[in-house]
């Protein structure tokens, strides 16, 4: 029931913000709904950790990995909605957007959240697909939120590329049913039944199907070379939307791929999917690394950073074993850190009125707290200890080195290059003399609390994983790594 209540709450919040003109109502309603969502997610995780899969109805199936993803989505979602209210407020006061846009924002964001939750908990692959497609639709208007030519361009690319990708994914998903439809299960196939039937699917079909699924959902994850929409969409959308796209939507799509991967692995062994994931993972890492080196816009940099991390996770799952464990850890860390980075980037944008790196400098002088957070989150994102991504990257490389030395070494060097590029840009943003007209967003502390909370959370998880969380991760690894 939990999940339905949460989704119901989100939809109600969506409706409320669309119906009421008062912008406080929408914001308050969605923060409350997201807060409820987080409570629900924690409850769900505890329940799944103690009792195993949670199956409230025919349509919903929450396994450990889904529960983890729900938790991540809820944390990022709550942080984003807490951040969004003061952020949009400030944009309204600067005249960037009209006051009426609040309604649109909160209406769509709640819908977006609901779709993600439904997609990741759906028992049926096609249902998961339907809700994933629905996220594309709800976010398209969020990306074009500022209604300028460039945002329309970004949203158009997002819409077309993702729709194409998702339809390919749909086709791949259909192919997975080739076994089940004949064995009389007719129609309502869940992930579980599909997995049980996996042995009976023709290996040839499974392979082709997985290629389609990987390319299709990989588009949504943002694996190179299907990544092209990412820098555009991330840089043109409002900061909290970027946080949601990177911190919540990416895990949802990745988890969907994993669910298909485990079926594929059961049918044709692990090597096939691993090799494909590895190719895309390394490609993502390399393209991201080289792109970040000379990037000129720090919000686009976030996009490439997401691509890099998606590549790392793909590698982790491809290597399996310790790598899979690390990849799930990485998933958690990445979502929290990247959301925090988007928030600090949003603060920078509010203070400097530009996302171009050449227009931003001396942030340490103008907005010291934001700049400090930006620095720390950057260090966390590029895998410096004591932040957890260091551990997860170490494990991923450790898992891969023996069997795939070249892939691992290339990945390691690419990660180092990402650090160099990222650091180059961060250094340019933080130090130096600030340009004229930059002012401290004197400052609504609610613009700072979400990234601080996320950073603290990462720091806590970097040293200590609460036992239920660890159980969930281990159980997920057991299930998804064959």
């Amino acid at each position: 029931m939990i999940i339905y209540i949460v989704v119901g709450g989100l939809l109600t919040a969506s409706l409320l913000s669309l119906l009421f003109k008062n912008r406080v109502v929408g914001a308050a309603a969605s923060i409350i709904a997201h807060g409820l969502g987080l409570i629900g997610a924690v409850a769900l995780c505890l329940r799944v950790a103690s009792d195993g899969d949670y199956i409230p109805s025919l349509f919903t199936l929450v396994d450990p990995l889904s529960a983890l993803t729900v938790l991540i989505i809820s944390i990022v979602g709550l942080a984003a909605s807490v951040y969004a209210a003061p952020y949009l407020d400030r944009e309204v006061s600067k005249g960037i957007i009209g006051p009426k846009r609040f309604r649109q924002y909160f209406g769509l964001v709640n819908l977006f959240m609901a779709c993600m939750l439904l997609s990741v908990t759906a028992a049926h692959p096609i249902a998961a697909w339907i809700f994933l497609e629905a996220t594309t639709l709800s976010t398209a208007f969020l990306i074009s939120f500022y209604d300028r030519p460039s945002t329309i361009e970004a949203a158009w690319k997002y819409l077309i590329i993702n729709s194409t990708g998702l339809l390919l994914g749909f086709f791949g998903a259909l192919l997975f049913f080739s076994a089940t439809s004949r064995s009389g299960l007719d129609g309502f196939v869940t992930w579980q039944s599909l997995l049980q039937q996996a042995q009976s699917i023709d290996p040839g079909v499974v392979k082709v199907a997985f290629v389609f699924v990987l390319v299709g959902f990989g588009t949504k994850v943002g694996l190179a070379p299907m990544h092209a929409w990412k820098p555009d969409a991330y840089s043109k959308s409002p900061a909290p939307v970027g946080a949601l796209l990177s911190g919540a939507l990416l895990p949802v799509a990745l988890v969907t791929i994993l669910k298909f991967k485990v079926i594929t692995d059961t049918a044709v062994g692990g090597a096939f999917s691993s090799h494909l994931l590895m190719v895309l993972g390394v490609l993502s890492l390399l393209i991201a690394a080289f792109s970040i080196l000379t990037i000129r816009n720090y919000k686009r940099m976030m996009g490439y950073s997401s691509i890099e991390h998606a590549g790392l996770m793909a590698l982790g799952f491809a290597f399996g074993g310790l790598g899979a464990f690390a990849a799930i850890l990485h998933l958690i860390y990445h979502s929290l850190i990247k959301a925090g980075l988007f928030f600090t980037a949003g603060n920078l944008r509010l203070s400097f009125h530009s996302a171009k790196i050449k227009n931003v400098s001396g942030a340490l002088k103008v907005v010291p707290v934001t700049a400090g957070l930006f620095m720390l989150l950057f260090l966390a994102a590029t895998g410096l200890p004591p932040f957890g991504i260091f551990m997860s990257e170490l494990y991923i490389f450790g898992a891969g080195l023996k069997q795939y030395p070249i892939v691992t070494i290339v990945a390691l060097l690419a990660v180092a290059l990402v650090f160099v590029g990222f650091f180059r840009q961060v250094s340019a943003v933080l130090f130096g003399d600030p340009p004229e007209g930059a002012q401290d967003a004197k400052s609504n502390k609610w613009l700072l609390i979400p990234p601080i909370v996320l950073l603290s959370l990462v720091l806590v998880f970097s040293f200590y994983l609460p036992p239920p969380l660890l159980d969930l991760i281990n159980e997920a690894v057991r299930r998804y790594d064959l």
Partner: protein
Amino acid sequence: MNSPLLVPILITVIYLTSIYMHLAKKNNGVAGLYALQSVALVLLFVSSFLANPTVLLFLVIVVSIIVKVILAPRFFNRLVTRHKVKFTVSSYANTPVTLIVIMFITAFVNSDVFLPITDLSASNSTYVALAIAAMLVSIFLMVNRKSALSQIVGVLSLENSIVAFGIIAGLEQSALLQLGTLFDIFVWMLVATVFVSMVYRHTGSLVVTTMRHLKD
């Protein structure tokens, strides 16, 4: 599949319409071809319904007709008339090259790679291959054409071919999910047409190549 003659004709229609979309010079023509393709798809549904009549499937057929055959082409035509963009913009490859690429795609689909899939429905393997070819040709439409409208139609045609593939290969889903899919597509269409309008408003044309400002 109880009507052995009908299916081949319908699937060929779907395949051919996806090719003609490459060649059409007018936007209305592209919309019309989509309507034709959708009719063929609906007829495929009907043949499936005749074999296995259920209420939900009937509902699917009705909704399909409303969304794909009636609403979608009307949206497109209204877009065309409102923005006075009767002729579609050019494509990257000229007609012979386009045809050669399509030929290669079709040949690729008929190669060994897709053997396991075309064998899913042994009796209809040629038509399964045609459906897949229609898919890839639709994607190629999005690559080749510079018009925003063509890209939307490309996505929709891709969807049509996938559904057609599902019907022929016998991979039909629970009708409830098909309704969900249809709903998605319907919303997608609304969103996409709104976006086409926005694109026109901001760039003054439907040429997607004008949208090349977001680089690096």
